[in-house]
């Protein structure tokens, strides 16, 4: 008797809870409609924008830069007006730890919260995993750092960084310029690293450079087999296409195995100050070369003001991709202004047409969602070269 009664009470409670949840969801959805349907007088609307990034894990430094960049943009743009509507921007910050496996869960959370657009994801792997879910929900996503070549074209994906087909070619060209005849390319088996490595290999092979490919597992500590293979191959340069932690370990182990006079190179994933510590000191990685897509910082239209504001807010220099993430929010706001609508479908349509004036300069997106420099910025280089000198990255 007792137990059936308890069960009945529980069932009733559960039903009530479900009803409450449903009604609150419906309420959320309808409030926007009712507000936007009546024109005429001035009103305030709150739009929720999701930040889908990696705040913990190996890429926490990239995630922090992205978060601060976007928050700066929010403080600049909050309360923007379209027609007679004032929009308040609310950010919802979510962490996927840089792991593709966690990414769909985060995407679903953001969709359930009712975001109109998402800035992210941080990594190509996460983007690849989350994009179909956002696509199904019709939510636009703009990434400031997911560079893998085959992420475009998709119906709802845009990026404010330069894709890896361009970056890979730039790295290959750099090798050829430096006169390397044998190059070892190693990836970490992740989406971003393999994509970039494939592009580099393709371009190097086309240029007649001998290439050997190795793979390590992201999260591994020991790369001795790979180092032995690389050493046996005897390359002029070792390119690691993954992220800085594994890059640091690999370069350190290469040096320890006695590889001197070999040029270490990498993509935007290794261009972090943390690589110095991770490689066991500047001596192991000094002279390392890295590329990063985008307009050079000294040629960016709003770089100086952005840097000052960033330092004031975060207490340190802007990390990689802070400015592209900042401009992702600017682009979303511009798209809303253009269509006078904060509906996700309208934002997607208008993102294809906007011409954004951001920190990085004037830009838009081509029909595939790829970054396109426009206006004054159109002629500027889209790949920047960096060299690690005395423990700091110096633009070349």
């Amino acid at each position, binding site marked *: 008797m007792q137990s059936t009664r308890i069960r009945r009470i529980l069932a009733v409670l559960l039903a009530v809870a479900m009803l409450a949840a449903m009604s609150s969801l419906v309420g959320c959805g309808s409030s926007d409609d009712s507000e936007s349907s009546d024109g005429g007088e001035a009103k305030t609307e709150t739009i929720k924008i999701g930040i889908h990034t990696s705040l913990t894990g190996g890429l926490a430094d990239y995630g922090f830069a992205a978060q601060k960049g976007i928050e700066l943009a929010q403080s600049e743009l909050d309360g923007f007006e379209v027609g007679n509507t004032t929009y308040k921007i609310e950010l919802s910050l979510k962490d996927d730890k840089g792991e593709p496996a966690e990414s769909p869960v985060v995407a679903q959370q953001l969709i359930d919260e009712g975001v109109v657009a998402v800035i992210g994801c941080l990594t190509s792997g996460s983007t690849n995993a989350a994009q179909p879910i956002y696509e199904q929900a019709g939510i636009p996503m703009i990434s400031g750092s997911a560079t893998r070549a085959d992420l475009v074209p998709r119906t709802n994906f845009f990026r404010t960084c330069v894709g890896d087909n361009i970056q890979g070619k730039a790295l290959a060209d750099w090798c050829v310029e430096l006169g390397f005849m044998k190059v070892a390319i190693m990836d970490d088996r992740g989406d971003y690293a393999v994509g970039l490595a494939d592009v580099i290999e393709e371009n190097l092979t086309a240029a007649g450079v001998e290439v050997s490919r190795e*793979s390590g597992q992201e999260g591994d500590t020991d790369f001795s*087999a790979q180092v*032995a*293979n690389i050493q046996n191959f005897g390359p002029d340069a070792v390119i690691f296409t993954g992220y800085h932690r594994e890059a640091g370990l690999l370069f350190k182990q290469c040096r320890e195995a*006695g590889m001197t006079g070999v040029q270490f190179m990498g993509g935007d994933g290794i261009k972090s100050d943390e690589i110095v510590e*991770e490689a066991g000191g500047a001596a192991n990685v000094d002279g390392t070369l890295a590329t990063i897509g985008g307009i050079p910082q000294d040629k960016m239209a709003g770089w100086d003001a952005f840097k000052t504001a960033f330092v004031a807010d975060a207490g340190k220099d802007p990390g990689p991709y802070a400015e592209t993430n900042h401009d992702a929010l600017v682009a979303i706001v511009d798209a809303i202004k253009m269509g006078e609508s904060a509906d996700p479908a309208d934002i997607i349509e208008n993102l294809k047409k906007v011409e954004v004036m951001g920190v990085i300069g004037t830009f838009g997106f081509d029909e595939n969602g790829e970054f396109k420099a426009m206006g004054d910025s159109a002629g500027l280089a889209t790949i920047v070269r960096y060299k690690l000198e005395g423990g700091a990255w110096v633009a070349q």
Partner: protein
Amino acid sequence: MTFEHIFRLTMSGLTVGMVYALIALGYTMVYGVLEFINFAHGEVFTIGGYIAITTLVWLGVDDGTPIGTKVGYFIIALSVSIVLTALLGWLIERIAYRPLRGASRIIPLLSAIGVSIFLQNAIILVWGPEAIVVPTSIIPDQFVTVFGVQIRLLAFVIIGSSVVLMAILTYIIKSTRIGKAMRATSQDMEAAEMMGIETNKTIAFTFIVGSSLAAIGGFLVAMYYGSLKFDTGFLYGLKAFTAAVLGGIGNIPGAVVGSLLLGLVENYGVGLKLGGLAWFFVVGLMLGLYVQMIRVPARRKKHIRDEVRTPEYEAQVVNVYRFPIPYALQTALAPRTDALLSVSARHALRLFAGNVFLASMAVLFFLNRDFQFATMWQHAISFAVLVLVLMFRPAGILGEHIEEKV
């Protein structure tokens, strides 16, 4: 394929293998005594490394520290790490496993997985999710050049100290009172208890020894690679567990053999061309032929009962092994008249099939001698070898020592 290349692969295989061995011993000892797998052991290893690094940083070792003081600091850090990690191992046993003793075998296993997740998160809480980096000034970075190959002195330290530790462990188990108690507990816990052995204390001691070894492993890995992450222990634990199974879980020499084999396979498998790997099959084939042609027939002859022992019958038993296709097939297909012969026939055919497999692999590898597995396949190859070994020897290379488990 130069000699330097092979030597380099061997050295790194041995170094990695020895680290696996230090961890695998913890798995195998606990299995030997309790017949359950302590999945939290990988995290115990990570925490050992973290504690050692933190202590060193706290002591403030740097480049300027005189070498004598530096060695002293290392010993202090290692001791602190061993003591705290052993305490942790003891606590885990006391809190998570002892209350479940006597329950179904799956229950402590689940508890172990729970402890593993708990410890990973504890590391994140205490030290943060980012990798902890050992300050460069702390790491000893001397090199030696052997056969033209530059090798870190630390690699030799890892190999040497592992060998010494294993010798000490063997001595403890074979020749001390507590070792005797461990062996007795592993054979039959109830009987041991009735004989006046305090099994709870013995089991706690097993955990303490296993955790201390893991702490030393964690310290060595941190020094060798320069960084640790909260989930480093997961992969190492998995590999070490694999190695323990490969060598025969519950078997101490087996754990060492399995670890070295795994370390070497990981390096040779993706570092050598198939032409080089084929030699392993050639050696295997020679061993297999020796077993099939000489060793087993000689043993089988001893099984012949005296009343039927005739030179013709002996020759028949030997021929079943030496020429399995005609003789063994004939015997195996014939109506079952003679138990020894028909058992031998089937045994001979199995051995023969194994040797044919080895021979065809050798031929296959020699035919594709210039092909090399991409390093992408590193973990897959290790796993394939594990499956292969377990297919032929389900109990592992040295077998589960049921009577001498620990």
